[in-house]
């Protein structure tokens, strides 16, 4: 059990999806209903009648790893502008309508996709579809709206990266691990890029990627799938497809030797990130390798009794917190990551050596049957737990389809994990987790402190 300060999650890396999140035999499956409209819009519907509500998500196949140098973060900037009105809807009106319905709405951008969603009472589905399809085609991009919103995004970057040393470390880690691939781009963009966007850049990006044939509609909730398709036809269906030029292939150079970098910042505690290039379900020539890597990630850090916590935090008391992360659904491959913080008085080099020793152990000895069984038991249970939220059900579907994977990838996930053998786990560990394929980033205390001597509070009897 972790208190707020004992959580073993670096907020940035923690946001990567930890695997082992689904299973198949736990309960009867609700069928996914899938179709494609004539204009190319992919539609996936899942019925869940537990509450009279519906989640409506629209996913575009564009994100930070589609962006050219100099325009990093433009997908995210456009996501912000999508709330600034269309030819027929005033700026802010979209949010106002959803708010009047009692709905919740937001949007998010990642390396692989940009998604917009609303959660509303089921009677409002048609209206949010009308609003969402309208901004797919008729966005009005003006300088008057753009300039203040650019400053909002600058503030977002200051808040989420600049004052957070561990966030900076992860951002620079990606830019070091990837030299030629656009996977190096920060989702929010480099500050200088944000400062120099032109309105025309956003217009170009919008017309280049926002079209029904580059999008996926996901609806989960108390709905009849056939009715949803009718509504989709009536709303999204009226917009013609556009020419979409798929992004040019941007392969990462093969790494031929370890890369290291350091970041010095005002932090009292060092941190380390280590990562290896590994395949994802999208990039793999053999998907079995992906399942084996996923099981390996769970062996190392699937839960608080997994190897890394048990060995480095509990037994050796070297790490104060540690995690291993592998998100196997990236369009351009993946990193198998380790992120850790040493215990007080422990050198970060000792911690690195201890992590490498755990990796060596995986290569040298087959994992135990009991470890495999525990991972599968948890994966099955989590598949049921995940269905407590219609939001996460929809997000799981949308994120798969957006990188070109089948919508039911997660429904078959546990079955695929079940097929993994201890030999396969050793094989992928040997093949990928080796020194020449490793990038290491270390955050070191600069010795400075952010805190100045505290002045006495000023008391004043008036507001200023």
């Amino acid at each position, binding site marked *: 059990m972790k208190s707020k300060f004992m959580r073993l999650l670096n907020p940035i890396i923690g946001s990567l999806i930890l695997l082992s999140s689904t299973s198949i035999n736990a309960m009867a499956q609700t069928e996914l209903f899938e179709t494609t409209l004539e204009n190319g819009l992919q539609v996936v519907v899942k019925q869940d009648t537990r509450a*009279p509500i519906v989640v409506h998500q629209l996913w575009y196949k564009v994100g930070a790893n589609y962006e050219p140098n100099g325009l990093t973060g433009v997908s995210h900037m456009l996501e912000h502008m999508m709330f600034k009105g269309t030819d027929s809807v005033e700026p*802010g009106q979209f949010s106002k309508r959803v708010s009047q319905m*009692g709905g919740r709405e937001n949007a998010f951008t990642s390396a692989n996709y940009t998604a917009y969603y609303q959660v509303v009472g089921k009677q409002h589905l048609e209206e949010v579809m009308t609003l969402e399809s309208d901004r797919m085609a008729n966005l009005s991009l003006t300088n008057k709206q753009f300039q203040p919103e650019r400053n909002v995004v600058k503030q977002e970057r200051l808040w989420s990266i600049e004052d957070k040393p561990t966030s900076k470390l992860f951002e620079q880690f990606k830019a070091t691990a990837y030299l030629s691939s656009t996977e190096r781009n920060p989702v929010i963009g480099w500050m200088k890029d944000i400062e120099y966007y032109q309105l025309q850049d956003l217009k170009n990006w919008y017309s280049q990627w926002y079209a029904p044939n580059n999008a996926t509609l996901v609806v989960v909730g108390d709905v009849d799938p056939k009715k949803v398709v009718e509504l989709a036809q009536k709303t999204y269906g009226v917009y013609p497809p556009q020419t979409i030029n798929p992004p040019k292939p941007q392969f990462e150079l093969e790494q031929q030797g370890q890369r290291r970098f350091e970041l010095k910042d005002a932090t*009292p505690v060092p941190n380390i990130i280590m990562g290896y290039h590994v395949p994802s379900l999208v990039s793999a020539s053999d998907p079995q390798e992906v399942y084996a890597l996923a099981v390996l990630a769970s062996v190392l850090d699937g839960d608080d009794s997994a190897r890394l916590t048990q060995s480095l935090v509990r037994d050796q008391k070297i790490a104060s917190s540690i995690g291993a992360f592998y998100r196997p659904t990236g369009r351009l491959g993946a990193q198998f990551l380790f992120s850790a913080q040493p215990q007080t008085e422990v050198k970060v080099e000792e911690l690195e050596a201890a992590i490498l020793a755990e990796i060596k152990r995986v290569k040298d000895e087959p994992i135990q049957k009991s470890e495999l069984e525990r991972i599968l038991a948890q994966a099955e249970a989590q598949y049921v737990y995940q269905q407590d939220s219609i939001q996460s059900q929809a997000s799981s579907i949308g994120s798969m389809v957006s990188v070109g994977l089948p919508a039911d990838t997660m429904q078959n996930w546990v079955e695929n994990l079940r097929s993994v053998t201890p030999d396969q786990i050793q094989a992928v560990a040997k093949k990928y987790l080796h020194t020449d394929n490793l990038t290491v980033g270390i955050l070191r205390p600069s010795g400075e402190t952010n*805190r100045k001597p505290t002045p006495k509070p000023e008391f004043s009897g008036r*507001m200023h």
Partner: protein
Amino acid sequence: MKIIMQAFVFAMGLMAFSLSQASIDIQTWQTSKGVKVLFVEAPQLPMVDVEVTFDAGSARDAKQPGLANLTSALLSAGTEQKNEQQISIGFNNLGAQFGGQASRDSASFSLRSLTRENLLTPALDLFAEVLTQPSFPSEIFARDQARLIQALKQREEQPNQVASLTFWQTLYSGHPYANPVEGNIESVQAIKPNDLKAFYQRYYVAKNAQVSIVGAIDRKQAEQIAERLTSSLKTGEPAPALPAPKPLQEAQSQVIDFSSVQTHYMLGQLGVERGHPDYYALFLGNHLLGGSGFGSLLVEEVREKRGLVYSVYSYFAPMRVAGPWVIGLSTQNSQASEADQVVKQTLKEFMADFSDEKLSDIKSNLIGGWPLRLDSNGKILGYISMIGFYDLPLDYLDAFPRHIERLTKQDVLDAWQRHIKTDNMLTLMVGQPE
């Protein structure tokens, strides 16, 4: 993300509701030891959520800030029969999820499990063992104490944490709510395993406990579960009443000089305790002012019109006694004064008057959004746990939207003028504001 809303720590209590057809049937009874139980049957998914709550939050720390938090964190570090690793493997092998946390008001422990007999029974047995037979091993205590102190050192370099910490300390000076839940470096350093044992003996008792259950089981099973979890607890005594905090008597402004690129800003004062009759009007007003994201006045003025921030929010956090009311934001240092002015101007105008259209919009947002607040077992568990812990009426969830519906603009303005004294607010800035 387009916007980050205020962390959902407070969301539970902040949320309001409507539509009587969506009403939740809460059953309640007492165990043989006198522990209050609240139960909602949710047959759709083969899972069950259980939460055991004690009035054992950091407000009970007395002169040892951080004690309640460490006690709750160490509960699963070992029992009379099992060590830490056996406990965590025990839950994990069953696909069960165990968790716990301390806040100022309470310490709560949760178990999520599938309902399959051969999984649920051993998971409950282990949960009961952790709750009733913790051993607080000194070796693990020393390790986690060191980890916590390290985290507390990091906290001092994080402007948002420093702001929150200072805010509570200034607003609640001398009150049990003043100290951070996690304590501070000196106080945590001084805590010993025996202090944890003493705290546990005093507060982790039947008369100070409550059980909340949501899931695919029937009443009889729920009764057995509650009995199983609490029968080995000592009877004990309830925790004493907390003193009422004193409101600020004059405006205070504080600047903490801090090398961050943004200034972290908090403005506020005391709000109300849970169950206060004015809460509906305060909540509705706050929802319009800064509690509802993109529909709210603060987001409109500070973010949408001027682009000064990524996030600005306000909330009431009603607690056992008056919790705070806060407006918060962060902005680059050079914009801090401007943001401060816009916030205060927006508040002033809101407290003077707002349009009828805004009132009806915000009402329809709250009332129409009611089903969204109860669309998962996890959310329902949070609500019933709150209703039980703060002795709210069982029909609280159904009554809330009716209260909201009835409120007039004058009701809202009157309540705000009664409680929010704009001449006695605390303004706090951490950064290098210009």
